[in-house]
C-alpha cells in the first residue's frame, strides 16, 4: 500500500535537482525569484525587531516611567534625539515602531495559525462527509460571513474583556475561520473525487485515515499560502480595530495604535503616521509576497 501513497512528503527525495520532485522544483524556482529574496530579507529584519528589539532601540524611551514620552517633546521633528521624530505624546517614534512590531506580528501570527487550524478542521469535516453535515456547516459559515466584520469585532471586544492582544486575536480568529473553512471544503471535495482517494478507499482505508493521510495534505497547501497572506492582512486589521478604538489598549502599543493615534497631527507631523504605516506596509507586503512566491513555485500548472 505504501507505494500508492503519492502525497507530497513521501515523494521528496533529498538528492538535488536531478530528481524532479515537487518540492525540489519549487525550491529551484524560489531560489531564482527576486520576490522571494526581497520578502525573505524583509522578514528577517521583522524577526529581529520581534525577538531582539533591544538591539535596535532602547526600551527606556518607550515609557514615561523610564524617562521617555515627555509631552514637552510633542511632535518634535526628526533630530539626533529622535531619529524619526516624536509623536503627539512626545514619545520617540522610532523606538515605539521597533517595540510596536512584537504585538503587531504576534497578533498576525496567532490569528493566522488559529484561523487555519480551525478553518481546516471544520472545512475538512464539511467537505468530507457532505450531505446534511455539509449543508449545516455551510449555512453556519454563511451566517458568520454575512455578519459585518465591524459588528462582530465591536460586539466581541466589548462583551469579552481580555487583556493585551488576546481580545484582538480572538476577534480576528472568530471572524476569519469561515473563509479558511470554505476554501478547505472546496479543495477537499475536489480531492475526494481524485483517483488516489478512490484507490485508498478501495483498499479498505478508514475514513479517518483517508482524511488525514490523503485528503488533508492535498487540501492544506492552498490554505497555507492563504494563511501567509492573511497573516499580513491580520496585522493590517489590528490597525483598523485600533482606529475604531477596539484594538490593543495602553500601556501596550502596536503599529496599529500608533497609526490610529497619528491621525490627530498628520498634517503637522507626517512622520507620526508615515513611520509606523511604513513598517506595517512593508511587513504586510513581505508576508504577501512570500505567500505569492511560494504559491507560484508550488503550483506546477503555473511553471513556464
Amino acid at each position, binding site marked *: 500500500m505504501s507505494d500508492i501513497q503519492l502525497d507530497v512528503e513521501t515523494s521528496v527525495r533529498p538528492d538535488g535537482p536531478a530528481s524532479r520532485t515537487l518540492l525540489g522544483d519549487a525550491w529551484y524556482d524560489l531560489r531564482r525569484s527576486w520576490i522571494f529574496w526581497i520578502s525573505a530579507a524583509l522578514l528577517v529584519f521583522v524577526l529581529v525587531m520581534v525577538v531582539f528589539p533591544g538591539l535596535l532601540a532602547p526600551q527606556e524611551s518607550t515609557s514615561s516611567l523610564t524617562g521617555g514620552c515627555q509631552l514637552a517633546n510633542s511632535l518634535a521633528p526628526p533630530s539626533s534625539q529622535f531619529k524619526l521624530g516624536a509623536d503627539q505624546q512626545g514619545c520617540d517614534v522610532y523606538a515605539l515602531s521597533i517595540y510596536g512590531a512584537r504585538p503587531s506580528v504576534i497578533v498576525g501570527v496567532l490569528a493566522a495559525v488559529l484561523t487555519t487550524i480551525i478553518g481546516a478542521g471544520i472545512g475538512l469535516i464539511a467537505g468530507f462527509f457532505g450531505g446534511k453535515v455539509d*449543508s449545516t456547516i455551510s*449555512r*453556519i459559515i*454563511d*451566517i458568520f*460571513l*454575512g*455578519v*459585518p*466584520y*465591524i*459588528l462582530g469585532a*465591536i*460586539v*466581541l471586544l*466589548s*462583551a469579552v474583556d481580555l487583556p493585551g492582544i488576546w481580545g484582538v486575536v480572538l476577534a480576528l480568529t472568530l471572524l476569519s475561520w469561515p473563509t479558511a473553512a470554505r476554501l478547505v471544503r472546496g479543495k477537499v471535495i475536489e480531492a475526494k473525487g481524485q483517483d488516489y482517494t478512490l484507490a485508498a478507499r478501495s483498499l479498505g482505508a478508514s475514513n479517518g485515515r483517508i482524511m488525514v493521510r490523503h485528503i488533508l495534505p492535498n487540501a492544506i497547501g492552498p490554505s497555507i499560502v492563504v494563511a501567509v497572506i492573511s497573516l*499580513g*492582512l491580520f496585522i*493590517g486589521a489590528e*490597525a*483598523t480595530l485600533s*482606529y*475604531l478604538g477596539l484594538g490593543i489598549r495602553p500601556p501596550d502599543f502596536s503599529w*496599529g495604535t500608533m*497609526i490610529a493615534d497619528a*491621525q490627530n497631527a*498628520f498634517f503637522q507631523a507626517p512622520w507620526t*503616521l508615515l513611520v509606523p*504605516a511604513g513598517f*506595517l*506596509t*512593508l511587513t*504586510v*507586503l513581505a508576508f*504577501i*509576497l512570500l505567500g*505569492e512566491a511560494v504559491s507560484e513555485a508550488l503550483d506546477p*500548472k*503555473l511553471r513556464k
Partner: protein
Amino acid sequence: MGRYVVRRLLQMIPVFFGSTFLIYFLMNALGDPLNTLSPQQRQNPAYMEYLTQSFNLDDPFIVQYLKYIWGVLHGDFGTTFSGESVWSIVVERFPVTFLLAVTAVAIEIVLGISIGIYAALKRGKWFDNVSLAVALVFIAIPLFVLGFTLQWLFGIKLGWVAPSGIAQGWPKSYIIPAFVLAAGSLAYVLRLTRQSLLETFNMDFMRTAKAKGLPSRTILRKYGLRNSLIPVVTFLGIELGTLMGGAVITEGIFNIPGIGQQLYTSIRQQEAVVVVGITTLLIIVYMLSSLLVDVLYAVLDPRIRYE
C-alpha cells in the same frame, strides 16, 4: 437544479432565525442600553422609565427576543430609541450602500480584470511586476489611511469632487469612496485573473488552438477568457455581500448615509432591534448572492452538477 435552488432558499429560514437570535444575544451581552445614556439624560427618570417600558428592557432576554420576532412576523421591525422606524431607515439607507458596493464591484471588474489579463500576457515583464507591487501596496495600507489620503487629494487639494456626502450624485460622489472600498479586493481580483488565465494557457485546448496557428488575440478572446474567468466571477458574486457589510469605515470617512453608518451608531447605542434588522438583511443579501454564484458556477461550468 430547480430543486436545488428551492432547497437552498428553504435553508434560509433556519438561518434567519439563527442569525437574528445570535445577533440579538450578542447585543444583549453588551449590557443595559440605558447605560449608554449621558449624565445629562440621567436627570430624567421619567424618560428612562419610558425607554424601559417601550423597549421591553426589563424583560428577560428570551422574552425580548420573542417579542421582537413576533413584531417582525407582523411586519413591525421596531424603532430606534428616538422613535425612527427601522423599516424606514433601511428603505432610506440600503439603496445608498447598495449603489456604493455595486460601484466598487464595477471598479474591481473593470480595473482588476483588465490589468490582470494584461499582466498575464506580459508575464514576468515590468508591467506584471509593477502591477503586482502596486496592487499589494493597496492591500497593505490600512483602509482609513487610504481613505483620508484620497479624500484630501481629490476633494480638498485638487477639488475634483466634493470631499464628502452624496449630494453630487452618481458617479461623482461615489467614485472615490467606491475605489477605497474596492482597493483591498482589487488586488485580489487582479491576481486571480492573472493566475487563472496563466493556468488556462497551459491547458491542452489552448495548446491545440495555438498549434492550429490562430492569432493569440483570438485565442484569448474565444477560449482563454471564458474558461479562466469562472473563479473571478464567483469571487465577485460573493464580494457584493461582503462589501455591503464592510462599508462602515468608508461610509464614515466620506459621510455617505448608508446602512454601515447606521449600524455603527446603533451598535454603540445598543439599539438591538436596529442592529438585528440591518444585519439580518445583510446576511440574506449575502446568502442570495452566494446562491447566485453557485448557480452561475453550474451554468458556466457544465461539469458541475447539483443533485
